[in-house]
């Protein structure tokens, strides 16, 4: 299957420990997905809309904070017409705001899948915590499946 019109977006800051899991997963995919657009961004809604507008498939990898799940666990959200992601304030204006804004402006990709990885350390510094680091490979595998049409 062609990978045209498909992109992977890694959201996060590699200098805030587990928040860097999105960029880290993309680094893992550089060699495995040649020709596929891989983008690292901070999640600012305007940039997210610019990246995914017109795409057939956008896979977003982002870190989340969820006390109810163990660090390193991850889950998949297929964002549909009525799906909701938390939209924070401007400082935290990220994926939820981008999706909500994209919906109002009719600028969502045809298919949007979010892979959310639960982090535990969002402090200053580089490097992922052990559980989150262990999730990088399976999350990358799942992105690969989605982009190559096996997911």
């Amino acid at each position, binding site marked *: 299957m062609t990978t045209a019109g498909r992109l992977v977006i890694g959201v996060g800051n590699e200098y805030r420990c587990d928040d860097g899991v999105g960029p880290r997963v993309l680094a893992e995919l550089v060699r495995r997905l040649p020709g596929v657009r891989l983008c690292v961004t901070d999640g600012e809604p305007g940039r997210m809309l610019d990246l995914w507008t017109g795409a057939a498939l956008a896979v977003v990898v982002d870190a989340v904070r969820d006390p109810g799940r163990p660090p390193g666990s991850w889950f998949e959200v297929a964002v549909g017409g009525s799906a909701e992601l938390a939209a924070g*304030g401007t400082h935290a204006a990220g994926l939820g705001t981008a999706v909500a804004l994209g919906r109002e402006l009719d600028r969502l990709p045809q298919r949007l899948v979010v892979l959310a990885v639960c982090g535990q350390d969002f402090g200053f510094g580089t490097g992922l915590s052990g559980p989150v680091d262990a999730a990088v490979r399976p999350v990358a595998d799942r992105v690969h499946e989605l982009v190559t049409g096996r997911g």
Partner: protein
Amino acid sequence: MTHRPDRLLDVRGLARVEGEGAMYVRVRGDRVEDVRLEIYEPPRFFEAFLRGRRHTEPPDITARICGICPVAYQMSACAAIEDACGVTVAGPIGELRRLLYCGEWIESHTLHIYLLHAPDFLGYPGAIELARDRRDVVERGLALKKTGNDLVELLGGRAIHPVNVRVGGFYRAPAPAELAPMRERLRHALDRALATVEWVAGFDFPDFTHDHELLALTTPGRYAIEAGTVATTGGLRFPVQAFEDHVIEQQVPHSTALHARLSGHGRYLTGPVARYTLNGPLLSPLARQAAAAAGLGADCRNPYRSVVVRAVETVYAVEEAIRLIDEYEPPARPYIEVPAGAGVGRGATEAPRGTLFHRYELDRDGLVTSARIVPPTSQNQAAIEDDLARFVASRLDLDDDVLTARCEQAIRNYDPCISCATHFLDLSIERS
């Protein structure tokens, strides 16, 4: 409910501002007893961990202070380091810096106008709800913002935390042909910027004025952005090297950002309104025309009209970017060598939110031994609190919800970047 003897407006998490802050207003009878813009975002230690770093590193390190205005941090850091090393950067490299800065003004101002501030005036809780009703308007804002982002990316290598800036200039200067497509996009952006001025000029502005002393950089012959000397409406004129002689920072218990005042003068305000009031005649003819058509006079003392000033400055930044591209001649080398040496250097530039000051002290090996960063939001805190106190005092007839919303809007007038402003608080322990 109105006319209660005691009222408390307490917003723990301010929305539509950059960073984490709160607002606290206590009213007793008809008297505003206490007003606090509480900045509780944790300290970020930048000034501390710059110590021991090479003189080439502050532009990249301090860019990380802010994702909205990283160029401002890079430009002020470069200016201060170059000042410490006795190097002056001008000519084509200086013009490229100004062009890069124009991109940041465009994206930052547009973000604030469309996504943060406009919903206040139009009665929407946020940009998403605004987009639901006015898709055309929000699309215009996003397109304008994208032009600014792309200009920063074109010159800086990426839109946030650019990687092409270095002490002395740039790692690589673009060829004129690389800038040509951007010029065409800027022509469209100019139409959008002018439409933005016209749009915001139609907002309903509360009748409110302040008397803050205004502070901005000034540059002979042109609107100050990437360089200048300091001027105030109180008649002060001093070089950036004397900034610390005039600006006194002080800690207040309710903020992790230091407050600032002018020695012998008191609170002051920096930012678009200050720039416009001090440098308005140096705007381009088209920007001045747009300002006049929008109802701005020679100065602007209504903080709610700052949204109009930002729109006018966006027009100017777009026009200025076009001019700089038209006149661009690539420098022979993209940077000037800045040899390491012992010294103290100071630099200031006009960030979108106001004057941003840096000072570095270097040892003989060029390692940073001390650093000081004074961002615009910390300088503006006292003025914001003064606005809040007077605004509330004159509108005690409003119920709490409306008054709280108006107060939040009053804070957003200044586009505060709280993340930029936080500092580490010195801790001293007295033992007996």
